[in-house]
């Protein structure tokens, strides 16, 4: 499943992030790497997704949310 389709309130583990190295690096610096556990605070059905990750709240654009694979 991709983050873009994840339901609000659920917790998931990130399995893969399919973007450029540059964006992966940026996400990593902000705490989001494969293996990170995230909680969906707002689903990205209508725009950006908001997730809680390592204590920080991150906003991820819908385009990006489609590139983040989650474990079920």
């Amino acid at each position, binding site marked *: 499943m991709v983050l873009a389709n994840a339901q609000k309130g659920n917790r998931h583990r990130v399995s893969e*992030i399919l973007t450029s190295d*540059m964006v992966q690096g*940026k996400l990593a610096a902000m705490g989001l*790497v494969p*293996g990170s556990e995230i909680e969906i605070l707002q689903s990205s059905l209508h725009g*950006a997704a908001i997730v809680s990750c390592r204590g920080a709240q991150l*906003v*991820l654009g819908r*385009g990006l949310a489609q590139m983040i694979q989650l474990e079920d």
Partner: protein
Amino acid sequence: MKEFQIVLAGNPNCGKSTIFNQLTGARQHVGNYPGVTVEKKEGKCTIGGRTFKVVDLPGAYSMDAHSEDEEAARQYLLENRDSDMVLVNVVDACNLERSLFLTLQLRELNVPMIFVLNMCDLARQRGIEFRKGEISEWLRLPVLECVGFTGEGVREMSEKIASLAGELENGTVPEDVPQWLKDLSLKGELPRTLPEELASDSENIAPKADAERSETENAALYYEAVSRILPQMISTAKAKGPVKTSFLDRLFLHRFLGLPLFFLMLYLIFQLTFTVGEYPMGWIESGVEALSEKVGSFWAEDSESLLKSLILDGIIAGVGGVVVFLPNIVLLFLAISILEDSGYMARAAVVMDRFMAKVGLHGKSFIPMMVGFGCTVPGIMATRTLDNRRERLATIFILPLMSCGARMPIYALLIPAFFPQAWHGNVLFLVYVIGILLAILLAKLLRVSILRGEPVPFVMELPAWHMPTLRTVGVKTLERGWIYLKKAGTIILGLSIILWALATFPQLPDTEAEKIAASVAAEMSGNVPEETAPAESAAAETVADAEEVSPEDALAAAQEERIAEAALEYSCSGKIGKAIEPLMKPMGMDWRVGTAFLGAFAAKEVFVAQMAIVYQGGDVEDEEVGEENVLKLGQKLKTQYASVDGEVSESRSMLVGWCFLLFSLIAAPCCATVGVVVREAGWKWAVGQYVGLTVIAWIICTAIYQIGTMCGM
């Protein structure tokens, strides 16, 4: 004694600038959104007789820079790692896990360093307790707690820094990087083995032995390590659990309500600036008038003294004209400060992301745009937080369309002048919204033409909500008000004198004045010469029509008015204005407005000063000042630009009003903006932006004016 420098480094929005201000007594801008500080700031402080240079670096999530502000921080650290410094790693205590990533990278620089847990009060509220001893043991660093906002713990921190500097000077070597960290960060040269307590259970991210690890894999290892250490560093026994979406977020980020709420807030802000601002504005205007009368009374009533003219028509009119709008400025900045400190700025970026994504930008670009409501220059600086150059250029290009604080006086002059009272707040709101929409439209054009490119994924950290306090908001607002007054007293004062001189010299020769007087006399006695413009004779008639005025007085007044007008036209300002008038005419403007817009290049407020200077002579008849709360200058403008056949037409007034407003909104960024664009994007962009925006403004205003006129407005 050596001079050490204190370097503050940490994640964005962790409170570095607040601590910087506490240490140095400076008033560096602070706010509750990531990217307030985008270039390093320097200051000085003295602790226990030792003077330090203090450097506040832009926030960074890691030492692998992903945007220009992060790069600035990285470079500074790498270039100065061998200098005499104490690195202060400021950490948001509520967000320790993520922050430790940067901490570990900083630790690897192996410079003298202390670890400061900032915003400890909030962490305590959440029930988090720190085992400082354990943290210190793990990182081999001194660990301190503080609350930058209140100053709690700042003294202990400075003392620690000073004692560390003292030890270093005596030759003490700072503690080496802990072994487990050394093991972690060997980048591919050796097969890595994690320290035993960290190694178990990490097969899925087992380090590659031969290839260099990518940034992400590296990060994954660090986080793995951190998440193992963390439970030993803090005690969350009493913790209330992670903070989930607050009520405010459910409201302001609501998928349907978010956007309307954003516009509703803008609407309220602009209603407020007008309705509340009106009263003090009236007081200031009366004050300026009283001052003008008082100063004027030093001279004989019909004195032609140049000094009198300089002081009354130049300085008091120009500076006074600008100072009148202080209340609007203060209210605007009050609102902006609340938005900045509460954490709403980042929410607005999220809400606008849907819009922005459609035009090839993303929500993060909206933060610099919101900063631009205060002033375009810091707005353009704030684009340094954007990761992609093309997006950054597009954002820089459209930023002047976000109405800055300096344009507020122009709007505050023009709107009451041309629009009925009930509309004032609404028109102001509309001007801002038109600016935003035009900006978005223009961004779209740029992103499909010269700045084409894939949209960059949008990722941003959402700061926690924070109740703005009277102290921070009040201080910021008063500071901005003071800056405005200072600007009026320095730049605007200087420019007013120049503008006055340009509007006064060369003076009209007496022979010309006599000729005009004679021709007015001839007109008034009935033989109107063919060549007089209808508007001017209309003005003469209005004066003649007024009942209580005797024919002699009417003649004298009309003569004076025409001579003043001729003198203005004869001056430098008039000549320059006349030269550009053919360009202004199609928009319903004349050469006076042209010179005001030219002057506005120096600073936007100059528009108001110049209008006040050129309309200084000739008072408005009392009966015309019927409407309440309209400045006298505004009345003059309405009479001048919205008259059809000598009668003020309300529909024409609005047409002209919109042309004036839109031209001030869109055209010609000020010189400070051009300067910062040159620095951030280069000459080509600065010139292109200046010319491009001015041409767009001209086309829009000409179209509106011409169509409006055709429709009989």
